Every structure is written in structure tokens, then in C-alpha cells.
């Protein structure tokens, strides 16, 4: 791990990965939009070369035809932050598991699988975590029919 600044890092990454990486800067984060095939290698680079050792948040959003997976990474103690997003199509919602890179991805991926129904390739124990095992459907999908009052 060497001294770096975020802009430089983004440049390096863009050079290395090419058109599969699209960088957007918003008010709060530098967002790296990555093709899902490159997700694992990008994450390895971010952790090993740039010290993003803290996967703070792993979340997913339903955009109709596609799901978006959102990773918020921080580095301890350097305190840099970056956001990585990747998209998967609804019908074959599967993405590489990051459990090898950050163990914390374990339950967070299980949660995403549980509530959004995205599968994680390489996850050793991909079962529901919050809902009962016999639950049908994935409630955070927008087409989930809610009952109740």
C-alpha cells in the first residue's frame, strides 16, 4: 500500500480496467460503477492496494429491470471513502461474493439474498438470515405484494 490520493487512485483504476469502469462524482462520494464481471478484481485492488479495509455497507436497490448493488468502503485508519456500484439484470440476478475479501460480507450478502433475492456466487452458506427459511418471495423487491392493514 502506497501513499495516494483518491483522484489519482480513480485515474489508475480507470486506466487499468478501461471501459468497464465508469466514475461518477456526486456530492458525497466518488462512485465507481463497475461491470459485475470486474467487481471481484476491483474490490481486491481496493483492499490490497489502496487500504479500503472496512466494508461499511452492502446494500441493494431494485430498479425494475435491474438490481443495483451498492458497496460503501472506508479505510481505517486513513479514513478515505468510496462507493462502488454494480448492476445485475433481474432475471439472472447473480454476482460474485466478496466474502473472501471482507468476512463482514457474509451476513450482509445473506441479507441481500434474503430480502432482495440476489444470489452471490461463491458464498458458502447462502441461506436466509432475517426471514424464516420457508418464506416465499423477497420482500424488498418492488413487485412484492404486501399484506396487512
Amino acid at each position: 500500500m502506497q501513499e495516494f490520493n483518491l483522484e489519482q487512485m480513480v485515474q489508475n483504476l480507470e486506466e487499468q480496467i478501461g471501459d468497464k469502469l465508469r466514475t461518477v462524482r456526486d456530492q458525497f462520494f466518488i462512485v465507481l460503477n463497475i461491470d459485475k464481471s470486474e467487481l471481484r478484481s476491483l474490490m481486491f485492488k481496493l483492499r490490497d492496494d489502496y487500504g479500503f479495509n472496512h466494508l461499511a455497507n452492502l446494500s441493494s436497490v431494485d430498479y425494475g429491470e435491474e438490481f443495483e448493488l451498492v458497496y460503501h468502503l472506508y479505510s481505517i485508519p486513513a479514513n478515505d471513502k468510496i462507493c462502488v456500484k454494480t448492476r445485475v439484470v433481474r432475471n439472472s440476478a447473480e454476482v460474485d461474493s466478496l466474502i473472501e475479501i471482507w468476512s463482514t460480507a457474509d451476513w450482509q450478502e445473506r441479507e441481500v439474498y434474503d430480502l432482495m433475492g440476489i444470489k452471490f456466487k461463491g458464498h458458502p452458506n447462502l441461506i436466509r438470515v432475517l426471514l424464516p427459511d420457508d418464506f416465499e418471495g423477497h420482500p424488498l423487491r418492488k413487485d412484492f405484494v404486501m399484506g396487512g392493514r
Partner: protein
Amino acid sequence: MQTDIYRVNVGPIHPSTHGGLHAEAVMDGEIIQDVIVHLGYVHRSVEKIAESRTYQQFVPYTARLDYLATNLPVLGYCQTVEKLLGIEVPERAEYIRVIMAELSRIASHQIAIAATGIDLGATTGLMYGMRDRERIMNIFEMTGGQRLLSSYIRIGGVAADIPDDFIPAVRSFVNDVPQMIDEYNGLMTGNEIWAARMQGVGILNPEDAVKYGVTGPNLRASGIAYDIRKAEPYGIYDRLDFDIPTGSRGDSLDRWTVRIEEVRQSGRIIGQALDNLPEGEIIARVPKTLKPDPGKDIYHRIESAKGELGYYIVSDGGNKPYRLHVRAPSFINLMVLPLVCRGGVFQDIITNIATLDPILGESDR
């Protein structure tokens, strides 16, 4: 000697699982081989509820995430929405928020202290912790109207100005904090039986702690001085002077002492906030319907009593969040429970659950 492995279900109904936690212990005699954690007994689909509530309506739901530190999750959510909409919070409100947030942190830690006390058999420790916490509850009742889930912090500020007897009550509480800590230390920390039950139990080394995303007092007990109030200050924390207590061994005793020290530091913070409490507005001018720009998303995090509490909100331009995700520290901290329990004896499960201090309302959401 050949022995069979057997499984004991600690929870979901068990005196010391702090709610509906179900830890399935795989045991070889008294030695723990593994712990399998089953969650979801308190799952209330908060994230789905958020999608059908307006930004303001969701505020009381956040209070029910970490119900022992009720103002902290509310603060985190309100700050996230404020950041998303670019709302400036008045100075006075920021100070009141800090006071309420730190009081909540103390309340949560006192529950941790009290519950650890009873989990380890020191029933009297429970009563002393709860007794002191009751004073905070009175302060919450005075300001927010409710004792446990006060729903006092609002988007843009706080719901109402502090009442007249608020400052004396908080001051006297803060002044008594060192005395309370002495009592906890005298009754529990200094006790040899206590120390023997905690020292070297449930060791979490710093590498594992970071790898597993553990945050809050549990991470600091492993020796990493990482506190979001210092690392990425929100509100007015950059103007306040306080220390980050850390441990060295990462065992249960460190987690316990770090919490006790944090109570002291929170007391310091409240004292400073009271000293500098400015006059002025308590809530910003917030439109009746909040409509952030479509497609905007934000991840904002605060240092909750349990660790890094983050909210990820995606807006579609409507008055309701398109997607809201809560990064619950208890959920992620619980992931290390099997790791810290392995190889210990059965009673260590109880110690470890107590000192990891999960709150199931938050972890199950």
C-alpha cells in the same frame, strides 16, 4: 474418551440473550465447538415500511431500531435526510442533539453494564445500572415526552425547546457520572470473580475485528481507536474535546471497561455542550413535504452506542424514500459471536453476548 457432540439452543427464549437472539451452541462437553446464530425473531421489515412512509413519518420508526439508545438512530436518520436535502440545522438544535445523543449513549451503555451484571450473576449490578439509567429516562420524559422512545429529534432540528429544569437535571447527572462509574467498578470490575470470568474470554484480535466489520466499543476494545465522531465528525463533534478509550487485549474485560470509560467521555461531552449551549432557533425551516432530487442517493453514518450506524437512502423525487437501508451495527457485530466463542466453555457464550452488546431490534430490523 469418545464423546458425542450435542447442540444446545441458547434462545430465542432465554434469560440472557438480550431479546430474541437464538444462538445454537455446538458443544463438546462444556467446550464450545461452534455457535450458529439464527436471527430474525424481531424482524419488523423496517426497510420495507420506510418505502411507504414519508420522510417525516419514518422518524418514529427509527427510534425503534435501537430502542435502548433511542435518540441515536433518530439522529442518524434525520442527519441523513438533512444531508440529502441540504438542510442547515440551527446551532442550538445541534447542541441539544449532542446532549440527547450522548445521554442516549450513556443509557445504552448502562443497559450493557446492567445486563452484563445480571448475565454474569451479579444481580445487584443490574439494579444499580438501571437505577442510574432511570435518571436519563426522566430527562427524556422531560424533553421529549416519552421515556423510552422519545421521538424528540426531528428533521431539521428538535421537536421542542428544552424545558427549564432540563439543564440542572443534566448537570447533576453529569456530575454524578464519576461516582456511578466508581460504583460499577467497585462492585463488578474490581471483583476477582468478575475479572476471572472476563479476562481472556472471547478474544477478538484487531485484524479479525476489521475484517468482520466490527465497529463501536467492540472494535475499540480490540485496540483500534476508530470513532466516527473523530474520524468523520458530524454535527458539532469536531468542536468538542473527548478521548477515545481503547483496550489492548480485545477480550470481554476490555469491551466492558471500554464501555465504562465511554460513559465517562460522554459525560465530558455533555458538560461541554451544556457550557456552550447557544440561544436561538431549535428547528430549521423545513418544507411540509420533503422531496429530494430524483436519483440522488446518500450513505451517512454516525457513531451509535453499538457502532457504525449508517443509513443508505435512495430518492426517486417523491416524498417517500425509494429505498432505505439501515447498516445496523448490532447485526454486523453479532457476526463475530461464533468466532469469539469457539474454544471457550459454555458460560462464555453468555459473557460474550453480554459484552458484544447486541440489540436485537436493530440487528433484525
